[in-house]
């Protein structure tokens, strides 16, 4: 969903009773005390630094650690033996008590975090003290499906890049938070919005869009990092979106398409490419060696009703590779053609060396799907090498949605939602957090509603059926599950692996924990008081390793809201 998906919004527990920060109320509260802005002493971030981010244990420069998006951080001071002594270094409270999905970025002791409604804070990474706060003046019209989220910023030179809920791209002065330039990405009245962190590379700012629930035509774009001018645009929906009439999904299961009926529709309606959805709302991976980017494209619009959109609906539910300089198409692989379950592709892909079918090591790309499989591809042509055992229960796939509601597992949030995976290449493991939410899939038919919510039905959590989650380590060279830890609630947010032999991840009930990355044994935990539904980061300062994570709950999977950024360290 548009966030992709997810409307399914299956939720648990009563919500905390705190008045959130919508609109004006938030602004009013803010008048009480306005902290003085201080200049953040941050040196310009060079392309060379970003390129070498995988070896940099001091900083956390890119949303998923490095351009390959491995979420493997090289710091190793905090390890399996001493992690039990991890404690809070500082807590920063933002002004916004809503869904918190930020990936903290750390540049030489300065941390950048974001909150719902596109706020940005620059903090002292040592003390949690605020340098500055950018309070985005939101336009009156915002259209998004699954919470007013923001997943973070990236820094290049002395600019901090932010994409906002009202579909603007903003460059801020890293020292002061002042706006340097601002560009309209698309019209929010037509269903476009931004929640992802941009990816900055080679003087370009790469950005996709939300809107798969609103009949948008998705895209990935490159803007000039200095001026905000558009460099190239790639429509995620080509003018010929019909494809090859695939009847089976990536794993070989029959999707029960009525191809003849679709062909009749196609003759009647023509190619549905203009309103076919296909949002991209998580970061692309960048392969500088071949000058390519790899990203995944979300669901078709409307989500559950396939009748207005005959064909495979390319490139929805696909892995896609483009040329970084020109935005030209290189290859794609579609996981689910003509999706009517919103089981699309969202979690950011990761570039790693993998074993091909003959056992030879080749450049690969892996993606964890809402289906609950980890898919392993050949980076050369996007082709599928293997897929893992399912990490969550699968039942009744692919039953077609009905008017009364058809039960199928996984539910429409996954499997793996937008949550980035982590990896540990030395162990050949990928770590994914999963949801288990039994759902009914229902279909309804309605014409394109001019940028309004266009679901084509509903997916609803089945009352009385137990939900849960898990953390799963998958060997991507064999496809086998190495270990799995069950959690009481579905998991959404993200995970980080470190060279200390650990993985860190949080739960909706406020638990934040460290696990032995080889066997899943829990080694340390902390209760944050609000849902820990954001990807953790790690950095070093004054010879100390820190782990930092947002605890602000989640809108989509209604977890208790809060507004804390919490940093941990050993003594």
């Amino acid at each position, binding site marked *: 969903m548009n966030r992709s998906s*997810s409307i399914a919004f299956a939720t648990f527990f009563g919500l905390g009773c705190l008045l959130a920060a*919508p609109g004006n109320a938030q602004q009013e509260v803010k008048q009480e005390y306005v902290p003085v802005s201080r200049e953040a002493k941050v040196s310009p971030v060079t392309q060379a630094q970003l390129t070498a981010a995988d070896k940099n244990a001091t900083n956390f420069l890119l949303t998923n650690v490095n351009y390959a998006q491995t979420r493997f951080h090289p710091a190793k001071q905090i390890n399996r033996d001493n992690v039990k002594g991890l404690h809070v270094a500082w807590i920063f409270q933002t002004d916004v008590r809503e869904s918190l999905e930020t990936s903290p970025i750390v540049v030489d002791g300065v941390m950048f975090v974001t909150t719902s409604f596109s706020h940005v804070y620059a903090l002292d990474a040592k003390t949690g003290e605020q340098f500055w706060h950018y309070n985005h003046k939101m336009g009156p019209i915002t259209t998004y499906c699954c919470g*007013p989220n923001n997943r973070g910023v990236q820094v290049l030179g002395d600019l901090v890049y932010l994409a906002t809920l009202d579909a603007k791209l903003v460059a801020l002065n890293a020292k002061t938070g002042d706006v340097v330039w601002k560009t309209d990405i698309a019209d929010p009245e037509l269903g476009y919005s931004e929640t992802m962190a941009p990816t900055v590379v080679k003087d370009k700012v790469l950005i996709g869009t939300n809107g798969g629930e609103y009949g948008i035509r998705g895209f990935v774009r490159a803007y000039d990092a200095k001026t905000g001018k558009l460099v190239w645009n790639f429509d995620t929906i080509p003018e010929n979106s019909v494809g090859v009439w695939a009847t089976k999904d990536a794993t070989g299961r029959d999707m029960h398409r009525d191809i003849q009926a679709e062909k009749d529709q196609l003759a009647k309606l023509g190619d549905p490419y203009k309103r076919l959805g296909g949002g991209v709302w998580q970061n692309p991976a960048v392969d500088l060696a071949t000058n390519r980017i790899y990203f995944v494209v979300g669901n078709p619009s409307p989500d559950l009703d396939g009748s207005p959109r005959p064909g495979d609906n390319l490139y929805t539910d696909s892995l896609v590779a483009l040329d970084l300089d020109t935005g030209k198409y290189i290859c794609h692989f579609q996981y689910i053609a003509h999706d009517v379950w919103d089981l699309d592709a969202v979690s950011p892909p990761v570039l790693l060396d993998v074993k091909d079918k003959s056992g030879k090591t080749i450049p690969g790309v892996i993606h964890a799907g809402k289906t609950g499989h980890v898919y392993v591809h050949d980076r050369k042509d996007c082709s599928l090498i293997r897929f893992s055992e399912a990490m969550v229960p699968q039942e009744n796939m692919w039953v077609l949605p009905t008017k009364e509601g058809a039960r199928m597992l996984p539910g429409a949030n996954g499997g793996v939602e937008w949550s980035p995976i982590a990896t540990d290449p030395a162990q050949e493991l990928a770590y994914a957090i999963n949801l288990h939410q039994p759902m009914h899939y229902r279909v*309804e038919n309605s014409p394109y509603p*001019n940028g*309004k919510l266009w679901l084509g039905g509903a997916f*609803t959590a089945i009352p009385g059926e137990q939900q849960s989650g898990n953390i799963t380590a998958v060997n991507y060279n064999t496809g086998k599950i190495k270990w799995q830890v069950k959690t009481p609630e579905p998991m959404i947010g993200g995970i980080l692996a470190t060279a200390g032999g650990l993985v860190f991840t949080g739960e909706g009930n406020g638990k934040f924990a460290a696990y032995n990355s080889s066997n899943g044994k829990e080694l340390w935990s902390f209760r944050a008081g609000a849902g820990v539904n954001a990807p953790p980061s790690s950095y070093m300062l004054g010879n100390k390793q820190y782990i930092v994570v947002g605890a602000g709950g989640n809108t*989509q999977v209604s977890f208790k809201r809060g507004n804390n950024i919490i940093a941990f360290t050993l003594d």
Partner: protein
Amino acid sequence: MSASPRPALAQSIAERVEVCAGCHGQDGKPIDKTIPVIWGQPSGYTYIQLRDFKRGDRKSEIMQPIASSFEKEDMLAIAEYFSNKPWPDLGQPRSPKDVADRALRAERSVGCTGCHLDQFQGTGTVPRLAGQSREYLTKTIADFRTRARGNNPGMSDLMLATPPDDLAALAEYLAGL
């Protein structure tokens, strides 16, 4: 209508919204229970409704003629004006526990707060539901189900996916928030 010279621009916002008070209330409390509260509603939502009335995407014999004279800037300004007003207390009772439990179960199944936000406060183009008139909520939910209110098929789909008894509980629960 659009061809005539526009006295609209000369008219101040305060003048333009005078007519609204006749139904939506001098003090924000509507004169009839089937008329919605518009004070304190997020401006994006009010703008979109006025736009939809004008376009005919949302049908209403009363509101369509009123909205049809507005241009986009008027609608944005009017929406902004009402969003800055305080939400009125209609004095509707809190729902009894069994009703609230039923409403919250239904909320969990669909995830209403995923869009309407924590405590149903609304934001952007999504309306506040907390404290809205129960009779109006009941009517507009029924209209979504029949698609008599056809300006948001997604909401219609979600309402159709929710059993009528649960929706009645939701209307009572939301009114009492």
